[in-house]
């Protein structure tokens, strides 16, 4: 009975704690007493509650944002430094006003309030039309509640700013409410389990509200594409609006649907002035582009020639995004531009030469979208690349790095799907990366006349392993390449030579000899390999929240043959191993074969899927420990006993 009583009290208490609307300056006893977050007991600060209430005044979005934070432990005081970022542009596209902020301390049951005055808010001008309001809360101590609210207006309402329920500190409650007028219709795109399962409908049509509770703080982990891809959040895209056109005869009114299908969206985008010039260049631009005529006997050769010409003559200004910043004319003149500019200009060149090419929008890793939705929601994408089909084969192109050969995408673009813009049949298509990356290592170890161990090695890097770490930029300078590979051990590496080829696939091959220890003791331990994909296990944490992202799949093969010198015999060698992670997406095999006068060690590492679920993290970690450990195990030779 007593148990039941406690349960009822607790239930009542926790409902009472945060059930009512948050009023500025009014704190519940629950908030005042709170000194630890149940689901994150070590947190030094917590968002007690935050609300974004959105309405429309005409076609201007008004967001009333209110956030309340509690400092729970030392170190949490730094939450008192606030920056509110917004895009002002030249004409105040977004603006922030009605700022109120205060610190409240509770001493002997009394509230001690310190309000911020106007002079405490600073406006900071950032680059390219962005601004920030910055301020800092005074008198923060452990136990303080700090609270601020403001109005943010936004005149650009086709895509509303995302609301991210997650914060860098844990969040007890975060609510996003939107009151849509009858003349506007929006499509929403929720991300994250809690947001997806939130009951957002209210009793009134047009009023929607998402509340997400008890969110952990979110932090980056090693081998992770980006934590932003896993945030709980919601986005909005205009789906339609009511209009009245009084200039038409007799007046005309109705409801205009926007982007009801992928093809509608494609039509909208491709007819924008910024895109038209690239997609349908005029005669003068066409003749300018005609000055380059690609050599080649078939479509593939021609497309590659166009790509090579383009990346060698046009340079990337470092700006990303899927919207072009300049028109084709300007790009042809200045020979530089943003990613979208360059890729669209490449498209123009390809089409000029009769090659099929289409814009392909993707959500790159780190864009905050781990999964695309199959509704025409353009805000889910952040990069524009090119889809091409030559001689019946599909390729994806990005013209921002001349070191990437035709058909290779930067690793952050290795995503599952993209939105292709076609004249008909636009929509999501799978992106299939067919490259087979990997490292092949062949080592031959023998002893020279001075009883010194000498290893002759050939190491071949293929595809993304050849492109990784800027290796190809180092090919011109073998010395630098050597330093990159061996660091300060480079002194022991002789006759280092490196060569590369682009066809049929990107490959780099390094050949070298390296000097090991002398064979002078009774027992000699010899490490059969010169290098490994990982020198040590990059996974050191014992638990994992997010998937491990290896960026690309690969298949490695290492072989080492040790010639047993005269006067020595094989005494001992590592045991064979054959391991895989559950599901078999990664496997490792290690085999030692003793032959007459030599011993051969072969190892393979295969990764069949580049993203590994956190649910098998402990097994993956042990797998990696196994791989790194086994590859450094020695072969033991001992001096033969004379008969």
């Amino acid at each position, binding site marked *: 009975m007593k148990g039941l009583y406690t349960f009822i009290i607790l239930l009542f208490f926790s409902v009472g704690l945060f059930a009512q609307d948050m009023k500025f300056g009014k704190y519940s006893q629950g908030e005042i007493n709170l000194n630890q977050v149940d689901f994150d007991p*070590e947190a030094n600060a917590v968002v007690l509650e935050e609300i974004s209430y959105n309405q429309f005044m005409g076609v201007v979005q008004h967001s009333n944002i209110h956030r309340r934070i509690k400092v729970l432990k030392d*170190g949490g005081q730094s939450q*008192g430094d606030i920056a509110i970022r917004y895009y002002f542009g030249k004409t105040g596209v977004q603006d922030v006003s009605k700022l109120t902020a205060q610190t409240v301390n509770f001493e002997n049951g009394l509230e001690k309030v310190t309000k911020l005055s106007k002079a405490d808010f600073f406006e900071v001008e950032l680059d390219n039309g962005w601004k920030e309001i910055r301020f800092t809360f005074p008198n923060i101590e452990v136990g303080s509640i700090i609270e601020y609210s403001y109005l943010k207006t936004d005149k650009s309402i086709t895509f509303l700013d995302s609301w991210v329920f997650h914060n860098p500190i844990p969040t007890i409650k975060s609510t996003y409410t939107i009151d849509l007028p009858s003349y506007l219709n929006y499509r929403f795109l929720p991300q994250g389990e809690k947001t997806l399962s939130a009951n957002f409908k209210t009793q009134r049509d047009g009023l929607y509200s998402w509340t997400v509770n008890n969110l952990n703080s979110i932090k980056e982990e090693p081998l992770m594409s980006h934590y932003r891809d896993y945030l709980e959040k919601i986005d909005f895209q205009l789906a339609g609006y009511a209009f009245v056109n009084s200039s038409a005869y007799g007046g005309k009114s109705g409801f205009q649907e926007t982007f009801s299908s992928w093809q509608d969206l494609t039509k909208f985008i491709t007819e924008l002035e910024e895109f038209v010039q690239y997609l349908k260049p005029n005669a003068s631009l066409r003749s300018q582009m005609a000055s380059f005529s690609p050599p080649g006997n078939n479509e593939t050769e021609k497309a590659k020639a166009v790509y090579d010409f383009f990346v060698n003559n046009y340079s990337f200004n470092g700006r990303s995004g899927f919207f072009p910043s300049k028109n084709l004319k300007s790009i042809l003149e200045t020979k530089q531009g943003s990613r979208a500019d360059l890729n669209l200009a490449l498209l123009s060149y390809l089409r000029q030469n009769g090659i099929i090419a289409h814009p392909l929008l993707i959500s790159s890793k780190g864009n905050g979208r781990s999964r695309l939705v199959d509704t025409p929601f353009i805000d889910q994408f952040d990069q524009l690349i090119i889809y091409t089909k030559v001689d019946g084969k599909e390729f994806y192109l990005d013209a921002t790095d001349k070191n990437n050969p035709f058909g290779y995408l930067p690793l952050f673009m290795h995503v599952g799907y993209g939105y292709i813009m076609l004249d008909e049949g636009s929509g999501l298509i799978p992106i299939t990366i067919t490259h087979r990356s990997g490292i092949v290592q062949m080592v031959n170890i023998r002893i020279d006349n001075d009883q010194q161990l000498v290893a002759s090695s050939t190491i071949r890097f293929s595809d993304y392993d050849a492109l990784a770490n800027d290796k190809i930029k180092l090919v011109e300078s073998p010395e630098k390449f050597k330093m990159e590979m061996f660091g300060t051990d480079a002194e022991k590496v002789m006759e280092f030579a490196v060569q590369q080829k682009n066809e049929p696939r990107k490959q780099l091959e390094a050949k070298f000899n390296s000097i090991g220890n002398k064979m002078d003791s009774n027992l000699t331990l010899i490490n059969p390999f010169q290098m490994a994909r990982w020198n040590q296990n990059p996974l050191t*944490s014992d638990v994992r929240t997010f998937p491990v992202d290896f960026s690309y799949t690969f298949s490695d093969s290492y072989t080492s043959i040790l010639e047993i010198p005269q006067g020595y015999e094989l005494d001992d060698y590592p045991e064979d191993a054959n391991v895989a992670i559950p599901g078999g997406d990664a496997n490792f095999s290690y085999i030692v074969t003793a032959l007459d006068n030599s011993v051969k060690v072969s190892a393979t590492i295969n990764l069949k899927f580049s993203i590994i679920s956190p649910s098998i993290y402990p097994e993956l970690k042990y797998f990696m420990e196994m791989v790194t450990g086994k590859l*450094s195990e020695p072969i033991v030779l001992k001096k033969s006993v004379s008969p």
Partner: protein
Amino acid sequence: MKVVLFSSLKFLAYFVNIYFSNAQEEKPYFSVLEKKDQITLNEDYSVNYKSQTIIEIFDQRGLAHARLNLPSDGLNKINNFEATLTSLNSGKLIKKVKLRDLKEVSYLDDVSIYDDTKLKVFELDEVSLPVRVEILVERVSLSNFFIESWLPITYYNQKVKNAGLELKYPQILGLRFKEEGLPSSYSESKEGNNILYKWEMNNLPVLISGSNDTIPIIEIAPKRFSLEGYTSSMETWEGLGSFIGKLNRNKDELPETFKSEVLRMVEGINDPYEKVSVLYGYLQKNYRYVAISLGIGGWMPRTASEVISTKYGECKALSTLMKGMLSAVGIPSQYSLVYAGENAKGLNKDFPINRFNHAFLRVPLDEDVIWLECTNNYLPAGFSGDFTMDRDVLVITEKGGYLDRTPDFKDEKFNTIEIQFEVDLLNNGDAKLSGRNKYLGFPSLDYFRINKFGKEKQGKDFLNKYLGGNGVILLDYGIQTGSKREIPLANVTYEGVIQRFGQETAKRIILPSHWKKLEEDMLPNGILKLEEEFFIRLERKFEMESQVIDVKIKEDYFTYWVDTQLSEDGIMVKNKLEVKLPEDISDEEKIKLVNKINNQFQQYKLLLKKAA
């Protein structure tokens, strides 16, 4: 190296020229610069800067060479700006840019919430190359407190065809300058009441990032100066100190109620260090570092009372408050200025100049002097860390100021790691682990930060990664931080497993005689004592195959000992590393040495034969 070459110029002109022309062929440049600069000090202490430059850019990487960030605030005004872009291919004018076309952004740094300085930015976006950019800038600074240095070469990979400076000042105010690495000398003349210095130099060598070339520079400092009504002389450090003293005057006065609170905090404590420690601890716990720079505020601290009422402040204000608190309990201390962080240059006794970016506190005690870093909230009093260590600082006194030097913390007691653990080796090569490590000085700081800011998981992740070798998975751990006077200490206890502690072959298990790898950042000031003592308990019968190791290796800059002892139930391993790097070691040499030491750690393995 460069200075020597230049000073031999008149004797070896021919060879020197050949040397330079070769050098230029080898070193790539992305732009060519011609510039004429004028710096004019006026009788009202204002300084005019006029700059006429022509930059020809051939490579996209040279576009940044035309970028200008022109400060504009209460002290700095831009009077005129004009830029003309001309295509070098066609000779056609591309565009003209005026002052009103420049975009304005706030000045931002990593530490301030806000700074009221705005920057007018000129940058080349996308233009067809090659391009010729002619720029005229006229600016005025209302104070000569800080006169900009002049660099004939402002960018790496830039070829300077010619560069000239005219430096003019009224004789009555005077001016001082110090040259470094300049290829040619100056001429001096008199124009009425003004003195005029002129430098003219041609075809300067292209500088490359990462090389050890001296960057030529003229540092300029005032004799008499004025800043918003405060006037003083910078000819001596004392003069500069006295000016700072004026800005700080009475700022450290505490409200009476607070003063009595401070006195209560140290009631019953006699040891002056203890008093300092208690008050410093109070500051660290209750005040946070927040920098807001408004107007002269960049140089003038907020008052102690203001800091007390808001519970935050910048380095100047927090130091001032601490000074006030110490003064209230009868301990004198001195506000001091320093160039903190990396890239600190020594201060020249004979060339006082305002080159500081940070303030902290000097506290003389009975036996020694300690320094308090008032923006830090976890260090023990007197351990001011590597942010300000081992460098010249300007100490502000009531009479003026003088130069002093901060401690280098090179003593062993600030640089020691003691690792002690036991492992139970399991049949599969994994091992059960339990141990206790002690960190003194710099090595302990990570643990202070974890204790202060981290969570259990972060502590565990950190230890799994950095406690010792690979494969550590801790099940339980504890971190205790504290101090022995100014020495920060951390004790870490832990239990867990080491995956694959031993390497296994068919017949053997091979065990390391050293566990913790050396990393470069374990040598922040070039000194380290790293001691390990571990006992390996064996689960089943093994035969020790390798002989007992007892080695001492003495190499340049480090000594390493290993000693192993066999007993019935296992092996005891003791090793000790002592590193002492020379002052002038380069990064590359440091990496090499660290690698060499790590290789040394790998040399001595323990071979165990599995029992049949």
